[in-house]
């Protein structure tokens, strides 16, 4: 199918446009500064795209008007009920209040800062092993050989499903979120693989409960004195895989892509290691990977935009994080930025439940890389490839370094 080029980004944007995927920031800057900062398109089923921080946050906070039951920018096939396992969602990301409240409280303790700290050493060991594999070669694909390999193994460990199937999990998740976003047949085929895999895992944990694994915990959990329904457990396992892998991998990849081009930032992190926590937040702000979507549950007018029931609205957190009204010199990466109210993890009740784990993985992955490979550069800036849509990050990023 030939895709018409975009002539007017205000009324006809295409989030899958190659140039936009490679570098969306100039488009957002123009829209944000223009008279119509909430753009609209009829492409891919139609959607609205806010570009100002205050608008994005206001949409995210208005959970009464904008439901999370549809979080993809593309519409389902038909009305969504004919596909297999249509009752399996991804709670709590796909939940609205009041169900959202308990669905979220079920998983928040697993992802508190205190709880995720136990994964730090394992993550560091994993990063070192990956680097062992290419450090003597003097070159590596920072995206595919490193970033892509880390979150999938951390999540597999949490779920107790073994890291030997990591490549398969990665391929399922790309099938849902990357390739599958534009191709519903691929999306649904991969979704079924994920759900059937977890059906087996849940049956196994019921028969053979384990001490320290998330699936066992969910099968033994209760809500208001009742066991958690299997559909819900399946949905939450689905969420762990789909939300926990290519998001964090994209953040690690973008950060390495940035650091490969900024020796002064590598030096700054070496000389002032105390800025690491701030630096991680700044990289998350500047290269926020995730754009969620919501769906209007009723007709509503926002800033003069006539949003109709059923319309999708993009939660353009990466655009919000470059708004000059909120961030001084927004396009500049300032590792020790003093004020950084970024919304890379969203805003309001759907704040990314895994954010503490994600930032731990990002910090450990970058610290370990810089410790082992202090000097590195892009092998060929033109050969870097990017995935976009709802999760943006480099998919191939070749770097050279001294051995």
């Amino acid at each position, binding site marked *: 199918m030939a895709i018409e080029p975009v002539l007017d980004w205000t009324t006809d944007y295409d989030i899958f446009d190659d140039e936009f995927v490679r570098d969306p920031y100039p488009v957002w800057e123009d829209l944000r500064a223009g008279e119509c900062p909430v753009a609209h398109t009829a492409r891919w089923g139609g959607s609205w795209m806010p570009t100002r921080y205050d608008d994005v*946050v206001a949409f995210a906070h208005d959970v009464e008007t904008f439901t999370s039951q549809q979080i993809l920018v593309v519409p389902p096939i038909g009305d969504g009920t004919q596909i297999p396992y249509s009752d399996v969602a991804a709670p709590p990301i796909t939940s609205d209040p009041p169900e959202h409240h308990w669905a979220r*409280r079920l998983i*928040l*303790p697993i*992802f*508190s*800062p*205190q709880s995720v700290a136990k994964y730090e050493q394992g993550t560091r060991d994993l990063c070192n092993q990956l680097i062992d594999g290419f450090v003597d070669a003097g070159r590596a694909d920072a995206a595919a050989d490193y970033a892509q390999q880390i979150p999938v193994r951390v999540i597999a460990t949490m779920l107790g499903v073994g890291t030997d199937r990591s490549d398969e999990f990665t391929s399922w998740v790309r099938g849902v979120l990357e390739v599958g976003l534009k191709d519903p047949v691929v999306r649904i085929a991969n979704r079924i693989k994920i759900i059937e895999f977890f059906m087996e895992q849940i049956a196994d944990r019921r028969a053979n409960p384990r001490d320290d694994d998330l699936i066992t915990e969910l099968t033994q959990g209760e809500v208001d004195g009742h066991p958690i329904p299997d559909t819900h457990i399946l949905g939450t396992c689905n969420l762990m895989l789909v939300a926990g892998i290519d998001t964090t991998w994209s953040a690690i990849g973008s950060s390495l892509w940035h650091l490969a081009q900024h020796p002064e930032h590598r030096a700054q992190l070496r000389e002032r290691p105390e800025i690491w*926590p*701030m630096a991680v*937040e700044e990289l998350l702000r500047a290269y926020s990977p995730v754009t969620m979507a919501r769906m209007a549950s009723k007709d509503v007018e926002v800033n003069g935009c006539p949003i109709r029931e059923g319309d999708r609205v993009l939660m353009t957190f990466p655009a919000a994080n470059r708004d000059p009204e909120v961030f001084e010199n927004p396009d500049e990466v300032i590792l020790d930025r*003093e*004020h*950084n*109210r*970024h*919304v890379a*993890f969203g*805003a*309001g*009740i759907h*704040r990314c439940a895994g*954010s*503490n784990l994600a930032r731990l993985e990002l910090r450990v992955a970058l610290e370990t890389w810089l410790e082992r490979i202090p000097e590195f550069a892009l092998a060929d800036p033109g050969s870097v490839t990017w995935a976009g849509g709802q999760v943006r990050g480099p998919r191939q990023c070749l770097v050279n370094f001294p051995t």
Partner: protein
Amino acid sequence: MRVRVDDELCHGHQMCAISAPEVFGSDDYGNAVVLIDGPIPADLEAATRRAEGNCPERAVIITEEE
């Protein structure tokens, strides 16, 4: 200076604890708690202000005393 967290507004971003780990921590659900009873010691005031300026939900509320 005193500080509190508005529990209705806080959604557990943890930006306050990252900005001022001596002043803010996390409960079992990852939401912010203030670790200091009473006035904020002078040497932690700057970090507390940074925490206020880093909260995406504007849930960190500082009150200055006479």
